[in-house]
């Protein structure tokens, strides 16, 4: 299950996006994401962080700059099924069961169908007893958990998570925040997490990048040096609260300095 190749380093050089028609979504971004680390991208909703994630995955062509993953363009890692992405909208196939959706990822990635691994992941995301249920019968949060399990099953080298806990209830969310990082950290997966929750960003990552409202421009690059493994209890610690204040401050600064804050909202 573990990745065959060592996790790659991800590099964005002058990565920018202006949509046809002149809407600027992303200001040129230079960033290096070290192999095996988890980085959270934080910003106001609609700022363009999802666009950054899509450009990194190669789903959206950049209008400037480039993305390299282990020195190669994104298409390369996709070709060897080393990438997995989860969206806020769970994007499950409605005509397949939870198990069917997860197994489909293995099939698309040309990996052997490992029934035990699939069941383990289903248990891990708390969907025991729902393996043979179709998405329509699940709550929004359960669907998102199924989508996360689908992401993890292929053992990706690069994991891109776009607001993956948006619809998950608070209690489960805390549980997942403790459990999931263990999986990708154990595998040394390079992970990017888009979120607008400051708490989630700090709890799950080694580093937080804060963006301004659209067009997304990097406002702050904050290292999270809390010890691993983390637990929800840590959110009450002084270190955590300091960090949270720093991130929130950076967010507020970004909003204040944006030229047309109201329009962006």
């Amino acid at each position, binding site marked *: 299950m573990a990745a065959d190749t060592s996790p790659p380093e991800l590099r964005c050089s002058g990565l920018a996006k202006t949509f046809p028609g002149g809407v600027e979504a992303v200001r040129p971004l230079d960033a290096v994401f070290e192999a095996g680390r988890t980085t959270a991208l934080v910003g106001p909703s609609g700022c363009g962080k999802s666009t950054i994630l899509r450009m990194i995955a190669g789903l959206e062509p950049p209008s400037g700059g480039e993305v390299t993953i282990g020195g190669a363009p994104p298409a390369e890692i996709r070709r060897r099924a080393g990438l997995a992405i989860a969206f806020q909208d769970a*994007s499950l*196939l409605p005509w397949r069961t939870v198990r069917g959706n997860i197994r489909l990822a293995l099939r698309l*990635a040309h990996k052997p169908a490992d029934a035990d691994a699939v069941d383990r992941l289903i248990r891990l995301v708390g969907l025991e007893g729902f393996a043979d249920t179709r998405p329509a019968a699940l709550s929004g949060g359960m669907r998102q958990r199924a989508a996360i399990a689908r992401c993890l099953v292929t053992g990706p080298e690069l994991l891109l998570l776009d607001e993956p806990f948006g619809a998950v209830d608070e209690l489960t969310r805390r549980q997942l925040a403790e459990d999931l990082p263990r999986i990708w950290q154990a595998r040394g997966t390079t992970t990017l997490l888009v979120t607008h929750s400051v708490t989630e960003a700090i709890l799950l990552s080694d580093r937080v990048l804060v963006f301004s409202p659209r067009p997304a421009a990097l406002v702050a690059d904050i290292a999270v040096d809390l010890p691993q493994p983390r637990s929800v209890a840590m959110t009450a610690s002084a270190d955590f609260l300091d960090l949270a204040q720093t991130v929130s401050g950076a967010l507020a600064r970004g909003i204040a300095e944006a030229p047309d804050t109201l329009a962006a909202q």
Partner: protein
Amino acid sequence: MSAPASTATSAPAGGRRTALGIFFVILGWELAARALAGAYLLAGPTDVLTYLAANAGLMWRALKVTLTEAAAGFVIGNLAAIALAALALILPRAERAISGLALLVFCLPIVATGPILRVFFGPGLGPQITLAALAVYYTTLIPLLVGLRAAPATWFDLVRSYGRGPMAMLVHVRAMAALPYLFAGLQIAAPAAVLGAMVGEFTGAERGMGVLAIRAMRALDVEATWALASVATAVSILVYAAVRRIARMVLRDPPPLILAPPRHSAGRPRNGWHAALANAAAVGGLAVILWWGAFEAAGVSPFFGKRPGDVLAFLFTDPHAAMHRVTLGAALAETALYAVPGYLAGLALGAGLAAILVLRPALAGIAMPVAIALRSVPIVTTAPLVVLLLGRGAAGTVTLVAIMVFFPTFVACLHGMRQAPGQVLDVFDSYAAGPLDRLIHVQLPAMLPAFFAAARMAVPAAVLAVTVVEWLATGAGIGSLMALSASVSDYGMLWSALVLLALLSCAGYAAVAAAERRVLSVYASEQLA
């Protein structure tokens, strides 16, 4: 956020490809005509243009007449659809009866209704306008019934929370939610109205495209026949495009092409069967009462205006009843032999071409104009031509039925595949899945609701096609039997054929709907909720 990007850039290139596609189609037509010169079969574009230049006045006057009839029928038919939808809204319990009765009337074969309408209306434009109206109202009614309920329940709660009633809901919520569905119906209706008007002219009219078409076919005037087919097609395409343009101006989103999700009967599959049967019985009873009552009230002559009792007697108690049943059965069997393969071939072609276009989008430039043209050609002008080209055997009839079924299926399937959720396709992209994987795992299943909606509506279309071909071209099957019965005053046979054919069409429709419910309960369970 990123969705508009790709469509905006591809529009001009798509337009160029379409123009190129049209050019190649016309070139192919001309070359085929040159190759077949002297066979009295095919007139090419240059022949058609020459004819049109020489007979511009005649053609223009005929076109004005037919378009006037079609427009009147279009307006009346669509107003009737709106009125029926409103009635269903006021009396929700009657919705099933209304849509059932509407389907039954829509399934009446025009070969038989034409002369009956002529008798009722006498000379004039009555049958032309009525047939045009009958050809359009159902395809508007069904999407409208869906559209009027297409708003989320919370919107209604919102209106209610301000203390406003059903009227405010209709104005602020339902009407707005239904608008895209209304336009989806109107777009399909436009070419159908032209066809209805032309068939109406076959029942005894002084002027119009239908009159010229009969004359040209009889007189071996190949140029005139193809010129008429070309003009009728061009006009139908223009009307289709005009409705589309208006829809785009009025609506901000393109109109939905899915005609109707299956009925929103909540759960209880076992009760569903009984309810469906009870509803069918109620609709049948209502139809019989309306039929009998209207004829008695109007004092329609029993010589040609047969009542329900007459049809029952003709089929069961008359001394020759057994013979009548054999005649009808044989004709129906002969018709089914062509209609069923044509119907299935049309469905397969429609879905298949849509799949090919999804795999190879560049082909759309050629495929789309051909598909729209095929759909818009009034079948009354093409039926004899296609049979001339392909022969009176199975090939010609099956082809025409397939053409009638093909286009709506194709458009619906294409639309359905585009409904495939973009993020799911992104997930597939993230695994670098190939187009075939996307097609099999995402796009084909996503297409199923649209496919079934089209397959249901295609049942009456296939019956229309096969009966028209049999009547005008091959002289076989139930279509020919109906025409022949009318000419020898065998109105018992005509009405029996009409009733049987309408019932069989409804049964076919119901069978497709039942299959649809089964399949969609797996593949689109959220649409059933």
